[in-house]
């Protein structure tokens, strides 16, 4: 293509694109003016006047919307980080079982993976919440000397309490993500060539030692990118918190929109919150990746 042509083509697309945007924004301003809401962010500092069941930092209904959103973001972070750890442990266990030699374990983990992956996450979350936790009767306590108790209010463990909402979300997200992580880990293990297994066996290394010293270090570089994208999915999926009544960032945005009608501003807030979450996850994984690469000087 000639340079002139390129410039004209881009100019044309530029005009079409911004023309379309102009029409849409014009419609928007007309519609907003009609409803009398307008577009600004000053409402962020007005009192929220709703209560939150769960808040890691102090929160009362006279605190501002901005503070409520921050609390929601922290709640999101809390459930994401804890399910991320649980899902990784569970996924590693199932992935190893799936790639291992014991055919019974392999069959069970394959069944687990297909059942979890082929049913909607939302359905699973509702199951854990309504059947797993609310199904427990409030007088049904599993107690160990007042240290540990389980009821439909959640779990209490030596002073620490976890609500049923949090636990259902934690369990549902972890189990759902673990099935995907298991496949990532299995794929990573299978990506190491058969020759490597034969080489360490021919040297008399035990299966366990060979796996840890030879196979795992080579599988990890293939596993990390897959893990990162599963963690990002986990973060996005955590917004289904609203289905079980856990006040995460999305649920609080939802409440605010219902109160104030500020849909566009809230969408922007949500976008920024998620950009921050994603940056947090990808950067942490990048550091982790570099740590692994450091011990790996070969290309």
């Amino acid at each position: 293509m000639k340079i002139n042509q390129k410039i004209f083509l881009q100019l044309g697309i530029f005009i079409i694109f911004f023309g379309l945007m102009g029409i849409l924004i014009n419609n928007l301003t007309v519609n907003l003016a009609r409803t009398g809401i307008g577009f600004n962010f000053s409402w962020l500092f007005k009192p929220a006047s709703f209560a939150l069941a769960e808040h890691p930092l102090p929160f009362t209904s006279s605190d501002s919307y901005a503070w409520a959103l921050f609390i929601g973001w922290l709640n999101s972070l809390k459930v994401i980080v804890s399910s991320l750890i649980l899902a990784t442990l569970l996924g590693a266990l199932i992935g190893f079982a799936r790639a291992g030699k014991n055919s019974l374990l392999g069959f069970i983990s394959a069944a687990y993976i297909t059942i979890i992956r082929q049913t909607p996450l939302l359905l699973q979350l509702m199951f854990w919440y309504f059947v797993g936790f609310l199904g427990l009767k409030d007088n049904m306590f599993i107690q160990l000397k007042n240290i540990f108790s389980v009821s439909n209010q959640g779990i209490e463990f030596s002073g620490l309490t976890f609500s049923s909402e949090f636990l259902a979300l934690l369990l549902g997200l972890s189990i759902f993500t673990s099935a995907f992580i298991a496949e990532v880990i299995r794929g990573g293990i299978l990506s190491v060539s058969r020759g490597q297994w034969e080489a360490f066996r021919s040297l008399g290394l035990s299966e366990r030692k060979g796996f840890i010293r030879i196979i795992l270090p080579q599988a990890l570089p293939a596993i990390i990118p897959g893990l990162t994208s599963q963690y990002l999915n986990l973060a996005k999926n955590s917004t289904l918190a609203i289905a079980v009544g856990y006040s995460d960032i999305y649920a609080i945005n939802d409440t605010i929109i219902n109160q104030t009608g500020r849909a566009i501003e809230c969408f922007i807030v949500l976008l920024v919150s998620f950009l921050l979450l994603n940056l947090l996850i990808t950067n942490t994984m990048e550091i982790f990746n570099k740590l692994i690469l450091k011990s790996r000087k070969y290309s």
Partner: protein
Amino acid sequence: MEPIVIAKNLTKSYTKGLRALDNVSLTVDRGKVLVVMGPSGSGKSTLIRTFNGLETFDKGELNILGIRVDSSHDEKRIQKIRKRVGMVFQQFNLFPHLSILENITLAPVHVQKRRQAEADEYGMYLLSQMGIDSHAYKYPSQLSGGEQQRVAIARALALKPELLLFDEPTSALDPERINEVLDAIRKLAEQGMTMVVVTHEISFAKDVSDQVLFMDSGKVIETSHPDIFFSNAKHERSRKFLNQLDKH
């Protein structure tokens, strides 16, 4: 003479009734070199890989260094054998995430529980024997194929094995790199190492072997002294195979 390898009637079937090994019997004595030849798919690799338990078999019996193995493939005995038998692969199979020296010292340190310093010293000695001690701290991907294969030989030697297995050690190499590896193997033969070598290199087989075993479709067609095998093979099938190799 002390036999190192005794195989009796080894048979291995794949599903659909194909035989990878069909009633294979052989003996290798201490200090001797057995060369195994045959067309691809004849079962020669399968045979050599049963000697250290990388392949199982369905019938027959193996006796490696006095350790008996049958079709039940007892893990403990296989493990004992692997500590005393070294193997060199066609595709080198070096560990890409470990340096050359680490590749060599891994098994001495973790299998034989030797001290790292001691293992390093012996590893350097082996590397100098192979003429590649200057590469000790490089990684496998930085070496040529011939150099990698010599590292693989050094790695197999690090456990001071009593038997060395070579599975087509030069088939993945560039033609001009083949001799450096074959020379290293010749040197080992001169030092009296017991070896089983699967190869297509005729002149090398003539020089080094005490016995040539020719296989086709899982069966042993003939076992002869190399002088006889290469000049006047007993079997029609062997002569045909040698003719075809010559043409290449």
